[in-house]
């Protein structure tokens, strides 16, 4: 019996739950403007999130997936990416998407039951939300393959959850990323729950980062509530990918502070104590403490920033609510590049019916 292979999984954290530095901080942490920019985005996302939930509760939005508690992970991912990289989200990465130019009104339009929400004005080559779990991981792998074929120095990034890391498509992406040395970063945002299924029922693995080993690629676990750690791991992984040195799995450990979606009630399956404990580690307060302690931020600035954020989101909500429904015929117009004869007949009938009914 001899040992033929050895592996290690590293854990990266810069700011602990008490916002204290653990070892030397990365350069981002010293860049006041940049950190404030990202903090403001995290705050904006949180304002957006609670507004969206309120809209849902009052019947003005469909089912909505909250991102409460994921702000550092999502913004950290976005901040490390370049515009020409490709992003393939699951369904709650508003922080990443807004950073990349997706508008809150677009996000609302989608959850409001209107496909036009996915016709992003910016980030036009990014994927829309991928409801079938982890299928986006293979789109990102395909995008990465396209970069490789075209010798384009960009990377593709996908995000899935702890649940999503059990899925065939995740493993397939991992496998081909290693086999083909793809410029891909697979981020597993491990928020401990997949709806009601706890992390330990998803996998017997000690870490989700170690799944990387199965594909022969690098894996790292980071504190997903630490913006600096997420950003740094992403930055390293992206540079490696763009340089043609292969793929990385990043497990960002965080916690879903909300229900799974507005259609869920987490009290059915989750202990209050667990939630409370997790609240103590949440990313926004942590970063604010860091800013406060640095003397970069005070309560007045916080209040002003929140005021501005609310005003900005109100405009977005207004834009969403005042968007008229698509005409009935629109549902036929994007099935093929050119409508087929058969669909043209169906379209005419549907439009006539709606007209007759005065819709």
């Amino acid at each position, binding site marked *: 019996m001899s040992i033929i292979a050895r592996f290690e999984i590293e854990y990266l954290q810069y700011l602990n739950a008490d916002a204290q530095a653990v070892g030397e901080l990365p350069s981002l942490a010293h860049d006041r403007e940049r950190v404030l920019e990202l903090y403001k985005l995290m705050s904006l996302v949180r304002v957006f999130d609670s507004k969206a939930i309120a809209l849902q509760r009052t019947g003005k939005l*469909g*089912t909505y997936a909250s991102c409460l508690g994921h702000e550092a992970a999502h913004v950290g991912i976005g901040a490390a990416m370049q515009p020409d990289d490709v992003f393939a989200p699951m369904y709650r990465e508003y922080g990443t998407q807004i950073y990349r130019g997706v508008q809150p009104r677009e996000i609302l339009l*989608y*959850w*409001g*039951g*209107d*496909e036009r929400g996915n016709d992003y004005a910016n980030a036009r080559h990014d994927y829309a*939300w991928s*409801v*079938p*779990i982890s299928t986006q991981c293979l789109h990102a792998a395909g995008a990465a393959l396209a970069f490789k074929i075209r010798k384009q120095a960009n990377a593709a990034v996908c995000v899935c959850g702890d*649940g*999503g890391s*059990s*899925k*065939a498509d995740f493993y397939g992406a991992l496998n081909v990323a290693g086999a083909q040395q793809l410029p891909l970063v697979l981020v597993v945002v491990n928020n401990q729950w*997949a*709806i*009601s*299924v706890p992390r330990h*029922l*998803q*996998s017997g693995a000690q870490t989700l980062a170690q799944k990387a080993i199965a594909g022969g690629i690098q894996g790292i676990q980071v504190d997903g509530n630490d913006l600096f750690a997420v950003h740094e791991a992403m930055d390293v992984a992206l540079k490696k990918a763009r340089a043609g040195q292969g793929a990385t799995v990043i497990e960002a450990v965080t916690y879903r502070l909300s229900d799974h979606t507005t*259609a*869920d009630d987490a009290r*059915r*399956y989750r202990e209050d104590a667990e939630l409370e404990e997790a609240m103590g580690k949440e990313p926004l307060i942590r970063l604010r403490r860091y800013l406060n302690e640095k003397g970069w931020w005070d309560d007045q600035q916080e209040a002003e920033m929140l005021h501005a954020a609310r005003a900005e989101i109100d405009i977005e909500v207004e834009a969403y609510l005042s968007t008229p*429904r*698509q005409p*009935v015929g*629109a*549902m*036929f117009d994007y*099935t093929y590049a050119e409508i087929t004869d*058969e*669909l043209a007949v*169906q*379209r005419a009938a*549907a439009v006539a*019916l*709606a007209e007759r*009914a005065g*819709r």
Partner: protein
Amino acid sequence: MPALTLIEAVTQALAYEMDKDPSVVVLGEDVGVNGGVFRATVGLQARFGSERVIDTPLDETTIAGLTVGLATQGMKPIAEAQFEGFIYPMIDQIACHATRMRHRTRGRLTCPMVLRAPWGGGIRAPEHHSEANEALFTHMPGLRVVIPSSPSRAYGLLLAAIRDPDPVIWFEPKRIYRQYKEDVPDDGEALPLDVCFVLREGRDATVVTWGAQVKECLETAELLAKEGIEIEVIDVATLKPLDFDTIHESVRKTGRCVIVHEAPRNGAVGSEIAARLAEEAMFDLIAPVKRVAGYDIPIPLFRLEMEYLPSVERIADGVREVMGYR
């Protein structure tokens, strides 16, 4: 006698059979403590334990393959796909193995299993939560495909599905999960898996449908009765094997047939019913067959979804059209 909704009748049937038959197990995502995202398996894990009500990892391929493995080794697994739109990764194990174990081994290994999934549109759900993809399964030899449309039929047919020695695809019309209650005695009485149910008799036209659309068809019958048109409404219920005889018998009487379903029209279960009519009932028909179905597009997100689903208006138009022939 308990008054139950359709989904409560599903739960009652699951509990009944788990209690009677220790080989019955339930598996899927969130079926345990949470009792399923629609609450169909609520209480089962508390009652029968986490070894018989299993929260699986989030991978439909895994769920399907495990189910085949369990079924071929003496268990009677009831797997859940959380929505019909997430059933696609299960198709490989269903088509290649569940349907063929008996065939492949000349009966040595068999695959008694039920694959349950909420099905169909109309609940203002996100993308992929509103599909009607039953036609993918009715084309596969070796399967039974069942869609109940009332609490009592859900109870009786599900018991039959669980007891059936072959694989059954079982879709639950989620739009009518809680539409109304019905007395559903917990008597363990199964309903037959190979007959259509004639829900309303009528002399003028036969309306054939299944799932949530039964509701619209019955409403259409009320509406048209006021115009003096009496339609016969047939709930197919078991889509495979198809009880064409009941449909044919009705068409012999009415001479007209309107097929109503929410799946896209092209290559759907309605196509097969129309084809059978074209083959076997041509001389019984006074009017051409009429299909009122989903359009051949992906079902739109919810702001437009009711424009997509067959409505009372569209069904009534369809019936009036065939009534134009005499």
